């Protein structure tokens, strides 16, 4: 039987978001014809909500005859936790006065450690190879 709304349950909600990023990079010329570059970034991020201590007065609860509420897992539906990598190694080799060979390898990785939405975990390898003509 539908009776309606008989009150509210209130609580102080606390959420905490933290992130940390660490990045390194270098550019190196071992000889007059070769240039090497390395860059990498690691990021860890999370946003967590504390469990809610929702409650209601006995007068309200006494009227809720047909429904029972359970908020004990509510906070787990909004947790976000992830780690990610973004790393690239690249090289250029001068083949002649007008031709340069270029190469790069990129690794992108996202780890979804709290799958509130669908599982967003995924990664890619990207390899690039090319020839540059300077005129």
């Amino acid at each position, binding site marked *: *039987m*539908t*009776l*309606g*709304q*008989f*009150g*509210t*349950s*209130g*609580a*102080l*909600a606390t*959420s*905490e*978001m*933290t992130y*940390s*990023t*660490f*990045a*390194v*990079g*270098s*550019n190196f*010329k071992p000889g007059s014809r070769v240039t090497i570059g390395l860059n990498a970034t690691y990021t860890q991020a999370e946003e967590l909500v504390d469990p*809610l201590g*929702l409650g209601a007065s006995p*007068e*309200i609860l006494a009227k*809720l005859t*047909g*429904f*029972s*509420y*359970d*908020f004990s*897992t509510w906070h787990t*539906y*909004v947790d976000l936790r992830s780690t*990610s990598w973004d790393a690239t190694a690249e090289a250029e080799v001068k083949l002649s006065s007008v031709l340069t060979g270029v190469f790069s390898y990129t690794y*992108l*990785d996202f780890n*979804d450690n709290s799958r*509130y*939405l*669908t599982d*967003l975990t*995924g*990664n*890619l*390898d990207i*390899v*690039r190879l*090319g*020839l*540059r*003509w*300077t*005129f």
Partner: protein
Amino acid sequence: MGKVTASFISFLLLAAAAAAQTTGTVTVGGRAVNDRGAPERAAEYLPTTSGTELALALEAALDTVYLAVDSDAREGSDQVHHLRVELNRLVRSHTSFTKMPHRLVHDPLENLRGAVKMPVVTWSTDLDPTARYRVDYDLLENRTDLQLPQAGWLTVSAIYREQWRQGHRQSLAISHCSTCHVQSQTRAVDERTRDAGVVAQVRAGSWKLEGSFVARDFEEKAPTPTRVYELAEQPALRQPLFNDRVWYDSKNGPLPYGVIPPSEKNTATARLSNPNVGGFAVTLSGVSTRLENLTTGNKVDFDAIALAVGRRLGKKGTFALRARSYTIDSTDYFVDVPEPKAVAGPYAGKSYYERYGFQPDFLRQSAIDRDVTEASARLSYRVGRGSSLIGEYTFQNIDRAHYEVAPGKTDTLTQRLKLAYSARPARGVNFRLEGILADVRRPFMTQNTACQTGPLQTTPLPSPIVPGSVQYYEIYRSRIGDMTASPSSYVQLKGTAALTLGPTTNASLSLLWWDGDNTDQDLTNWSRTTTAANAQVAWAPNESFQAFVAASTGMRKLKSWVCVPLMDG
């Protein structure tokens, strides 16, 4: 568009390459991509296909023409092109075209199962559960300046900007009954935003006057999604007892939702400046815009005027004063709610108003309508070699036309004081310390929009079908809690340092702390604390080797009162 761009650039390449004074590079290559799992985050703005790549950068300086092309075409949906053309210094034109994908997340709506343990009354239906969403973004921009030698004091420019967003995204439609049933389906996106305008700049002595007019039109060409809504009936008794309070249901067939209307926006600006009027640098500017919904005719007007004045104070000080006043005014809209009559039950033949005396019609007046005055005064003084002290006072008064942020009050007054000190205590050491203290009187909040302190009582007009129940308008009127996400006061401290650790090594460090809260509300409180730290060390021992290490970390803690309605039904 891609074919047009490719043909255009090919033509320019051939034309420029034929010229003797052409320099540049052409890079031809290939890309191999191996992707695993979901690409929505790992490759949110990247293509995941393998293929050929072409990049070119060339400059051609001819007798009367200068051409520069910078182009990077990686895939059909990942391209950046720039074209600069100058004709005998009379015409300067810059055109750019950018194209990139944006992958969007598909929400499975599992959070709807998060609260009610038994019986489960909130549920969702996904009509495209395996769909992957993506919107491709294209942007074409051009600015062409014309300056005649006979009128060197005048520059006239034409500007053009066109943006497309095409693809598919998830769309949600909620049922009558406060999101009890959420339906998800794929929605096509085919948006176009076009800006066209003219800018004129006039110089007379040390005075400069600049004016512009830009017209924008927006259109969503994809079809509006539709939903067949549930039959309007009392959910427990399964009887047609709610026809006096529900406008539409399954008998109306598919109905549109999430309608995106076409709109136009016209913006006019004027700016007059002079770097020296009696020792003062003066800038006076004004802006006027009108945004119109072409379906309803509703409008939003924005009009602003601003003044900036600054001057040096002796050899060690500077003074700057900025003031701005603006108004926002939108069309009021009367919502005449259809009031069908009940078809069954003890109130058959009566409307909801006739039974309960509740008038559902209302005049919609926007909370954005306001008069705003804001100003800041800034004084800086050099206290020593490499050291300076800065003080700044800022105030902003927002007076809303209709919306109350406290009982009988529509205005918010923000006052902010900033003090900063920068110094170079030793060679190779620079630091800056900054503190901000702010007070917000009557910050933005919604009054009486959450929480009841006790059980709702049955009214003198209870439902004869379900004795003891209460009506929705009674639930709304019984709320006493104020909600906000704005502080009534906050403090910010910031420190930065730059260090030279040796002839080949530099380091930098910055720290930020922000703390604000709002204790002005009835029943509920809000607070937020943010900290952030960044550090970087760069090392360049010789021309053949450079390296850096950087780290950043941060934290945000948010506290807000939550009220959950407890429904038995």
